[in-house]
């Protein structure tokens, strides 16, 4: 008797758990957290597999000094212990000190780099979306016209020419040959602005999420219009523009031939209204659905671009950190990147469901 009621209660707890797991958002967040954990773990051990360490340099260090250094960073502990300690600290939001750049913690470095990287990424993304979608639409509306052929030519060039090829080319032409645009150094001249976010006067009395509110210090309002960014943004976005232009063109051509566009015409709507009110939404669905991979592409692309143009961003810290075996810095950038990409992907999924009423539950 008591046994069966016990069993029933278990069942109802199971039900609650499964209904919580059944919730779309909670499931997404759980999957995201597990993914981040897997990525961190893999990165942690792969880094240690690489030969050398943070303190191997041109000049051989005195063995005693080296042992001291390793001890002070806990690198002499067994690997599993280091891993456990790192994960424990991470849970408290502590990313540790940078092993190489001893004046900064990893968090501070990311605090300097993230705004620069986000600005670069957002500008590239906006650039890509605006130009990619509009020239793709233009090409579709003039299907087989000269506009179409021009756009497709640009698109093919953009696709066969990745940003790590494009960047040196642009640098050569605009920076070296013509000398009209700076080729390096965005953000590195004034990192102090970003340290402001971590300063006591900023953090005092503000919430932990304050950094998400765009409270850009006044003196750096012009920061976003820095001409140091022109070449990096172009190099980063051109391949994406090409990809988006092709995608938009294809889906726009398809949509403009759809029966419901014929209906819109039969209703006597103007061509403008037909495109804006009836065609664009359907034509942009494929664009929205590639937004996740696209953002990931821009993010990984920015790693190379930041390195080439010497921008103090997360991507450059990642590359430098990996080259210098700055374990904590690399792990910090990986944590940041994976959290960023996973949350953006989730947002994209939700947006998609919002645009296409047929898949809304």
């Amino acid at each position, binding site marked *: 008797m008591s046994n069966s009621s016990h069993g029933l209660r278990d069942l109802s707890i199971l039900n609650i758990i499964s209904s919580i797991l059944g919730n779309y958002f909670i499931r997404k967040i759980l999957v995201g957290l597990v993914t981040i954990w897997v990525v961190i773990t893999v990165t942690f051990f792969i880094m240690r597999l690489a030969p050398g360490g943070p303190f191997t340099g041109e000049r051989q260090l005195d063995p005693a000094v080296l042992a001291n250094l390793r001890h002070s960073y806990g690198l002499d502990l067994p690997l599993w212990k280091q891993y456990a300690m790192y994960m424990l600290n991470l849970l408290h939001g502590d990313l540790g000190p940078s092993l190489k750049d001893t004046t900064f913690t990893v968090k501070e470095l990311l605090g300097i780099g993230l705004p620069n990287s986000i600005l670069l990424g957002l500008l590239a993304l906006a650039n890509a979306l605006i130009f990619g979608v509009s020239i793709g639409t233009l090409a579709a509306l003039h*299907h087989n016209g000269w506009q179409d052929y021009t756009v497709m030519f640009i698109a093919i060039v953009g696709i066969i020419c990745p940003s790590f090829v494009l960047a040196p080319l642009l640098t050569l032409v605009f920076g070296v040959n013509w000398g009209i645009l700076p080729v390096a150094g965005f953000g590195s001249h004034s990192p102090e602005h970003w340290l402001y976010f971590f300063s006591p006067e900023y953090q005092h009395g503000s919430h932990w999420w304050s950094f998400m509110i765009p409270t850009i210090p006044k003196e750096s309002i012009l920061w976003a219009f820095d001409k140091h960014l022109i070449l990096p943004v172009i190099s980063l976005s051109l391949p994406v523009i090409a990809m988006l232009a092709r995608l938009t063109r294809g889906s726009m051509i398809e949509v403009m*031939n*759809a*029966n*419901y566009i*014929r*209906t*819109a*015409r*039969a*209703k*006597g*709507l*103007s061509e403008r*209204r037909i495109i804006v*009110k*009836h065609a664009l*939404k*359907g034509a942009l669905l494929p664009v929205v659905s590639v937004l996740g991979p696209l953002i990931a592409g821009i993010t990984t692309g920015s790693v190379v671009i930041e390195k080439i143009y010497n921008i103090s961003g997360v991507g450059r810290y990642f590359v430098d950190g990996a080259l210098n075996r700055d374990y904590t810095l690399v792990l910090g950038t990986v944590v940041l990147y994976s959290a960023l990409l996973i949350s953006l992907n989730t947002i994209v999924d939700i947006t998609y469901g919002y*645009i*296409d*009423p*047929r898949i809304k539950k």
Partner: protein
Amino acid sequence: MNENENNNILLDVKNLTTTFSTQEGNVAAVNDLSFQIKAGETLGVVGESGSGKSQLFMSILGLLANNGKAEGSVKYKGKEILNQKKTLEEIRGDRLSMIFQDSMTSLNPFVKISDQLTEVLMVHRGISYNDALNEAINMLDMVSIPRAKTRVHRYPHEFSGGMRQRVMIAMSLICKPDLLIADEPTTALDVTVQAQILDIIDNLKKELNMAVVMITHDLGVVARVAENVMVMYGGRAIEKGTVDEIFYTPSHPYTAGLLASMPRLDDDSNKALYTIQGSPPNLQNLPVGCAFSPRCEYVMDQCKTSVPPLECFDVNRHRACFLDNYQDLIENINRGQ
């Protein structure tokens, strides 16, 4: 008298020719076709699939695909509208409306029914959204969509095929047009739903006092709703007349063949249905003479060299055929079986 007649003419189509340019050559979809539609008339347009029925009316409304070109003259209430982009934009959906066969795909899946209906009124009448919405709900009531007040705010995918066709009808009639062109509106639907849709069109036609063009390959549909019939073959009109005339005394061998190949409820002999021999004409390479001549049992030398013109031979009856003795076409077919 004559003046009065002219005033009654809604649509006056003269020598309409529509060609599509394709990689394989030009497709002659409509060939030198002329006809008129009077106010309040119901005209059935019949012919095999591919005979140019849809493209004829697409040309009139300026809805041709980019590779299509229409020539000739189409006058709406005396005003030239063929290829007149601006004029057509004003009268499409307002004075002349069209609904299509593919009810599942004719509504925009991304836009609420309410927005799709109201925008027609807002664009053509310039009225407010709220007024337009009331009218939209009225129209949905008129096409018998249950709970129109709430369902107007749904998306198309929440409606069945028959319901979507009702929405299309409501949308095309919301401005109370002079003419509704219904292009095989029931072909894609269940038989029972077909009957409902035809009833709805029939009732609204009376209520709104509009003319209707019913395009179909189904003679049953024509018999049910139309007063007059135009039979098309190879992009030409080959016969015109009232429903009774066409059904009882067809004057063209093709029409007679169509009728004989239609299953009849009043015929209990278990005879196999008649089929017209041969295949529909190749529109990229029409015969020099009558397009039907390669399939015609009564073909004469004359038919192979010149196209028979569509001529009036009785009050409002027209035929395009050189055959003089057409009175017993149907009997001849039945006897031959």
